[in-house]
């Protein structure tokens, strides 16, 4: 194995693996501190997330959301942009999906309605990202600040829309009417049932296929098209990109639109797949979770699929912990998520010097 290969192996696989492991050890310490047997907790968590059909269904359903937001963060990251606005873009994207799914003619075929509703999510997510992108590209306002502010704006906007516009007359809670049937994405258990296999009911729906499709698309786009090349060039070196005839301002706008559009797909899973109506805070936490997923997945679609699955396990397994153990609440998920972010993001290169010393000779500094 050449030194190159070894280095990429260290950076791509060994480091993230050790980082996650460290995060889990730290979580185990937290368990000990609150008087929970970490081994028992691990067993509950793993069984709850993977041990039976329904648990696995939930895990994959959560993972689907994280794939969308993880991809969103990753695409922006390749252009050197830190999109913190996944939360807001997912929220507003849901509005786009909902508008299509509420107001199209109910008699239309699902083959038309579903692609249109997905497009609605993509479009609204992209629109919500375009203003911060413009401000970054042409006015120099930092994308981190503006996207955070746009998350708050999204919250306020959605409350207004749900309370004043979409809420049905006589309805107390701020939620829309049910979507037209044609827009409902089939549940996986229903699909299986139609082929004669019986599996337990779970919120897992066909949006997981949409997530896989977009993972492949993002991979192809970033590494096998000239636009992907331009995006990565801007991310790695603005000066070199300009030299190469690439306009970084345009790239910022386009990349943020793609990023926002991907985040906007959360609504496909949550709204078209499960709830079939628009309601408050359906996006809660997935936008931010996407940042951790992208960090852990090294901004590569394959890594993101793996990381999203892990986060799905944490979400579903954490819920089981809350259910099974008295002194553990669902907040333990947030703690674990935080530790993963700390070790995969903040302390990303913690083990790098040691690994490189033992596994790959470093080049000389002259």
């Amino acid at each position: 194995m050449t030194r190159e290969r070894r280095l990429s192996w260290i950076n791509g696989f060994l480091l993230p693996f050790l980082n996650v492991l460290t995060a889990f050890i730290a979580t185990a310490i937290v368990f000990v501190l609150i008087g929970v047997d970490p081994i028992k907790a691990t067993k509950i968590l793993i069984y709850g997330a993977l041990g039976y059909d329904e648990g696995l269904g939930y895990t994959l359903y959560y993972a689907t959301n994280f794939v969308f937001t993880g991809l969103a963060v990753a695409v922006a990251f390749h252009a050197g942009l830190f999109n913190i606005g996944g939360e807001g873009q997912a929220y507003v994207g849901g509005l786009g999906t909902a508008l299509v799914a509420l107001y199209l003619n109910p008699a239309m075929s699902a083959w038309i309605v579903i692609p249109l509703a997905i497009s609605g999510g993509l479009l609204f997510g992209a629109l919500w990202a375009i203003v911060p992108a413009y401000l970054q590209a042409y006015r120099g306002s930092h994308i981190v600040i503006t996207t955070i502010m746009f998350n708050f704006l999204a919250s306020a906007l959605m409350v207004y829309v749900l309370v004043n516009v979409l809420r049905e007359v006589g309805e107390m809670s701020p939620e829309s009417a049910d979507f037209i049937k044609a827009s409902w994405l089939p549940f996986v258990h229903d699909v299986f049932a139609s082929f004669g296999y019986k599996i337990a009911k779970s919120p897992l729906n066909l949006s997981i296929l949409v997530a896989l499709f977009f993972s492949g698309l993002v991979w192809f786009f970033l590494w096998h098209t000239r636009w992907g090349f331009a995006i990565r060039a801007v991310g790695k070196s603005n000066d070199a990109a300009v030299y190469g005839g690439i306009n970084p301002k345009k790239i910022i706008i386009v990349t943020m639109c793609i990023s926002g559009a991907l985040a906007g797909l959360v609504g496909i899973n949550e709204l078209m797949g499960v709830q079939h109506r628009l309601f408050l805070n359906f996006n809660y936490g997935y936008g931010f979770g996407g940042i951790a997923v992208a960090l852990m997945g090294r901004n590569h679609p394959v890594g993101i699929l793996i990381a999203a699955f892990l986060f799905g396990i944490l979400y579903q397994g954490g819920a089981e912990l809350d259910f099974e153990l008295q002194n553990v609440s669902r907040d333990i998920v947030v703690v674990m998520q935080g530790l993963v972010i700390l070790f995969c993001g903040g302390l990303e290169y913690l083990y790098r010097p040691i690994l490189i010393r033992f596994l790959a000779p470093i080049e000389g500094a002259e």
Partner: protein
Amino acid sequence: MTESNIAIELINVDKHFGAVHANDKVNLSVRSGTIHGIVGENGAGKSTLMSILYGFYQADSGEIKVFNKEFRATSSKQSIEAGIGMVHQHFMLVDNFTVLENVVLGSEGGALITESLSNARIELKRLANEYGLEVELDIAVEELSVGMQQRVEILKGLYKGAKVLILDEPTGVLTPQESDELFRIFEALKKQGVTIILITHKLREIMSITDHVSVMRAGKMVAHRETSQTNPEELAELMIGRKVLLNIKKSKAKIGNPVLVAKNLEIENEQGLKRVSNVSFEACSGEILGIAGVTGNGQGTLLKALAGILPISSGTIEIMGETITSKNTLNPEQLRNLGVAHVPEDRQRMGMISEFTASETALLGYHNDKNINQGVWLRRASVKANCESIMEAFDVRPNNPNLMSSNFSGGNQQKLILAREFERDPDVLIIGQPTRGVDIGAIEFIRKRIIDMRDTGKAIILISVELEEIMSLSDRIVVMCDGEITGTVNGTDADEATLGMMMANALESDDELTGIKS
């Protein structure tokens, strides 16, 4: 020679970085009160050796003696205490601090700054008188010329009690006149008993200023010479281990029609500061037009404007039948399509993307080409094949398109960039600093290729801070100072003294005396 007059002695100093043997049992002794030159190609281990002396790295084995005392520095602080001062190639100054504040930085003393500042003021006055290092103390460093900033660095070292000064490529950013001034300072320091270690790759300087010279090659110290007993040819041969042709023979230029005509150009840099004004020139096919000048006198800005990276604020550039004005701009891609290739000055930041593979770096600027794109699909196999073929043509080593760009040596990176631009058969070539930070073997190769391009009828605009390079390659030389053209000479008539005067715009030399940039 007695024991006592050895300032620095290195015995069998050895340093590995992983598999790289950066210093291989290096021996060196520097006599007190002399100027000692260390020459070698990039990567020969000079900087590593000096970093060991300055406490940045620790040697794996070997012995170091400073003034006959055992010395093992683990930080630069210890080196300073032992009397070693270092002037880095890139100055370590805080731009918006005054000279006085910069000198005191790192040795402030108590909690209150006032007292140490006034003490420092007295001490600096003394030093300035003693060594002829006059600098205004209460002026912000950013207001000073590069030469003056360098003085501040030297003062900083002396203020901290340095008896040995190490200077890493000190003349890279200076005009010939400023360099001469620096050498006068060296002489004054030497008279006062200060030892100077000069790291450089410019043999001219070694010959004119040093007492002794040591040559490094591939981590080893290959020779020690008394300067008076050697000559540049021998040193060059020792440095690269074979005979080299520094002055490349070229035939007489067959000058054709003008293909690039610049008229009354005025250009602002990225920060909106006017860096080029009233510049007019023309470049003809079949000639090399050299643009000389000290770094930062507008050549870089001009180069970027010619390549379409910066817009011009007034004037016109006629290029391959198109006219560029402040309104009608062409971007770098459009210029490339017209047949204008650009080798940027800053190889690392602009010419390549260090975290991309070689094949991706070889794609930079040409990623929209039809022959590698099929619909939306960028065909990586074609990209790789293309990279392989240009690597072959320019002998880029290792010949591996999948290797990360940053893992090539400077010379090979530069060859890759030149290959990318040359192999598209452009009509106009804009080349910035083709051999900066490139080893001598590659310099020879690169210069030959540039002349070959000229001989096939291309118009070449060459910008370089190396006068020697400009003089040996150019058919015509334009000199820039402070954003304006201060002279034009024929390549055959050029001599260093005249060019130097033009580079400093000697007609307005009043500014030079105070050392303050206008």
